[in-house]
């Protein structure tokens, strides 16, 4: 009897939640979406497209360098491709993929929330990102792409030595891109601080969330340095200001200091989310909690913090005073410690646990191997005399590719397999996935390991051709072969995912027995993520069966369902006590409109039409005003 009375009410609640949270169908729905999962998917596919672009650029570079004195590409084309490869991979792939795709999709789910703190701002950050990517690529398509290297040193970046619009695409495009990333970082910080499910105090946050918090804080404090550097550059190029030229009291090293003040934290920004993915996969596939959890969480925050103090190790060959070099070398040695803590924590978790080396954990195994290689060569760069020999050679190209490809992309690939069932509701094909790992692993090793050697043999960076008598030929050829093997591995991964999307076996909500909250809801999750606000008493809530049973009871009883409106709970920052129930905004067209105005503003600046740019700026502000007339409580 009691069941009959209760069951229809439960169905009605679910139906009500569905109705409240459902978004418009079709293209219009995608353009006006504020759902973090949809935005995460938009980011995912867009960053994949940029990954392909960056990959094609890499293959063209490797083809040109396969043999000595090749004439596949001329120097101008090569310089544009190598610059765009760096810019694309860093700004348009890795960071938007880890923060925009993985972060957006997973953060609210893992903290038991129904969306990000500022859903419309979330949409804006995606449209701004897309706009910035198109903006920069317009340059390349016109064969006027950025051609000064991804850190574009001065005076090479001035009108005197690079008169065309190439550097303007670079500078304005990256300022544009920085707006998107800053908006995203802001959103993550507020979401992580305020929207955690009641009971999730700061020390009960999953390690992925710690990583996202560290990344977001880093971005907030690092991006302004790059932004100002680029603003100075554009003022110098377009308005005749003088910041970097000696003749008028400027200093070329100002560019480098401001760039690397951003640039070094940037590399931790690149790896931190990957650490977060690794620390999500390891506990699941070893079925045990991470060893030394508090140390690992602290290490994630520390590496970001100490990373702000080491920037000048990118400038050891510039003639800085020896005492300065020594200070930065000391700091660079210190920043190693949080990483060694994490490496051993991960490894000992694998030793103590019961590892199942299915595809996700294989990729994490590959990640650990490559991160250690890249980290060890990184430590060598803290030895000043060695740094001064190998900087700007292929040795450093090897170092950062082991870190970026090995330590950031491998977790991304593993994470794609890991969360594929959650997003699509289907399992990927396991054997093909394992083969794809070995191909990718072998390809990566073969592409990047010889670069250490060829760098020690004197091959400098950014050369479009090299002479045959220096002993570099065989290594370069292996690297090119490796690149194609790597490409085959990647194609197999994406082929697997695509096939499995339509033909994979159904996975159910929790195929891998994960410990975090995203596994506590259906696959894919409903628009509202959780029908009832989850009860949290540990960092691995999905392993707390008692709490999950309590959730089921609450759903039946109708408590904590929050179906009066577009609602999600907000908690206190440190302890996660329930504080208020928030109203989330519905879909909105204004983020796209604002992003469009901003894109037109930057295009006007590129063409030096300042007045027109101001008009578009004004329009953007008007659109922002219109946006804020729709107050969530009213709906």
């Amino acid at each position: 009897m009691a069941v009959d009375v209760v069951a229809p009410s439960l169905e009605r609640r679910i139906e009500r939640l569905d109705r409240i949270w459902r978004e418009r169908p079709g293209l219009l729905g995608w353009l006006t979406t504020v759902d973090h999962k949809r935005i995460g998917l938009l980011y995912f596919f867009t960053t994949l497209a940029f990954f392909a672009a960056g990959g094609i650029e890499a293959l063209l570079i490797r083809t040109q360098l396969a043999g000595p004195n090749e004439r596949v590409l001329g120097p101008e084309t090569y310089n544009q491709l190598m610059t765009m490869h760096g810019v694309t991979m860093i700004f348009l792939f890795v960071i938007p993929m880890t923060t925009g795709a993985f972060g957006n999709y997973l953060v609210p789910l893992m903290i038991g929330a129904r969306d990000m703190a500022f859903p419309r701002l979330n949409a804006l950050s995606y449209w701004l990102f897309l706009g910035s990517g198109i903006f920069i690529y317009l340059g390349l398509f016109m064969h006027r792409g950025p051609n000064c290297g991804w850190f574009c040193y001065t005076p090479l970046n001035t009108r005197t030595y690079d008169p065309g619009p190439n550097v303007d695409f670079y500078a304005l495009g990256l300022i544009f891109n920085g707006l998107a990333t800053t908006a995203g970082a802001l959103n993550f910080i507020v979401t992580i601080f305020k929207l955690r499910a009641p009971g999730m105090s700061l020390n009960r946050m999953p390690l992925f969330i710690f990583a996202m918090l560290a990344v977001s804080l880093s971005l907030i404090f690092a991006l302004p340095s790059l932004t100002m550097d680029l603003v100075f550059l554009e003022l110098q190029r377009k308005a005749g200001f003088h910041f970097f030229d000696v003749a008028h009291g400027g200093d070329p090293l100002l560019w480098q200091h401001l760039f690397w003040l951003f640039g070094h934290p940037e590399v931790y920004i690149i790896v931190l989310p990957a650490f977060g993915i690794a620390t999500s996969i390891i506990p699941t596939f070893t079925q045990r909690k991470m060893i030394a959890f508090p140390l690992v969480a602290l290490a994630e925050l520390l590496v970001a913090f100490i990373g702000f103090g080491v920037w000048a190790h990118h400038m050891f060959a510039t003639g800085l005073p020896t005492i300065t070099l020594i200070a930065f070398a000391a700091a660079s040695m210190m920043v190693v410690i949080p990483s060694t803590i994490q490496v051993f924590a991960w490894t000992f978790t694998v030793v103590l646990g019961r590892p199942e080396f299915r595809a996700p954990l294989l990729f994490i195994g590959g990640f650990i191997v490559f991160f250690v290689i890249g980290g060890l060569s990184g430590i060598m760069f803290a030895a000043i005399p060695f740094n001064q020999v190998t900087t700007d050679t292929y040795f450093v190209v090897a170092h950062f590719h082991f870190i970026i490809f090995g330590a950031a992309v491998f977790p991304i690939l593993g994470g794609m397999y890991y969360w594929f069932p959650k997003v699509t509701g289907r399992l990927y094909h396991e054997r093909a996935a394992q083969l794809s790992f070995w191909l990718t692993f072998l390809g990566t090793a073969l592409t990047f390991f010889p670069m250490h050697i060829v760098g020690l043999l004197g091959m400098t960076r950014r050369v479009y051709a090299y002479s045959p008598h220096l002993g570099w030929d065989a290594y370069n050829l292996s690297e090119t072969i490796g690149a194609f093997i790597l490409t085959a591995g990647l194609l197999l991964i994406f082929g697997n995912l695509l096939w499995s999307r339509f033909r994979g076996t159904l996975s159910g909500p929790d195929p891998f027995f994960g410990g975090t909250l995203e596994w506590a809801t259906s696959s894919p999750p409903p628009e509202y993520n959780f029908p009832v606000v989850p009860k949290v008493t540990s960092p691995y809530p999905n392993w707390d069966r008692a709490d999950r049973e309590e959730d089921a009871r609450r759903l039946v009883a109708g408590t904590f369902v929050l179906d009066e409106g577009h609602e999600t709970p907000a908690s206190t920052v440190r302890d996660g006590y329930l504080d208020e129930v928030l109203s989330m905004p519905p879909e909105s067209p204004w983020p796209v409109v604002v992003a469009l105005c901003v894109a037109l503003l930057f295009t006007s600046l590129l063409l030096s039409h300042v007045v027109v740019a101001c008009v578009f700026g004004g329009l953007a502000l008007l659109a922002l005003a219109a946006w804020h007339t729709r107050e969530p409580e009213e709906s």
Partner: protein
Amino acid sequence: MSAEAARLDRGRIARPNGWWGIAVFVATEATLFGTIIGSYFFLRFQVPQWPPAGVPDPKVLVPLVLTAALVATSIPVQIAYSAARRDRLGVARLALLLALVVQAGYLGIQIRLFIGDLDKFSPNQSAYASIYFTLLGGHHFHVLIGILLEAWLLLRLITGLTRYRLVALQATVFYWHFVNLLAVAVVLTQVSPAL
């Protein structure tokens, strides 16, 4: 509605999301200006003469007085927020309007001085002028944004106070405290060669 909004605001333990949002935004902007001011002093200590020959030393008194007037507007904006929290909307609107008038006056005078400076020395001539005008221009732009935020709020508050608008007011007030603090840092940098 306004009473409801005020009551809900007082019932919160933690600060609202909007406050955290503006706090993070302020952190970015503060870092941005930290970079500009850092660049100012980096360039300053590269050259023997600052300002360079032919460029007049910056005036000290007028900028300091103006900044004092701007910083003083922190009082009415804070009053506006406290009043709104206690559902005294009339007082809040009046205080905001007073602040707006003073801030607009400040901006107007600063723009006149800016243009006057441009007539005397140009950013095309020296790094000093380049960083000087960038620093001041950036600051004035932030003042303008603050004024626009306040104007928008005043408009919205005509139809009363909601939870959303109260948080917006709190955020705007925070932003203004930041701008005023920034004004102090900027003016001290601006007049530093003459000190």
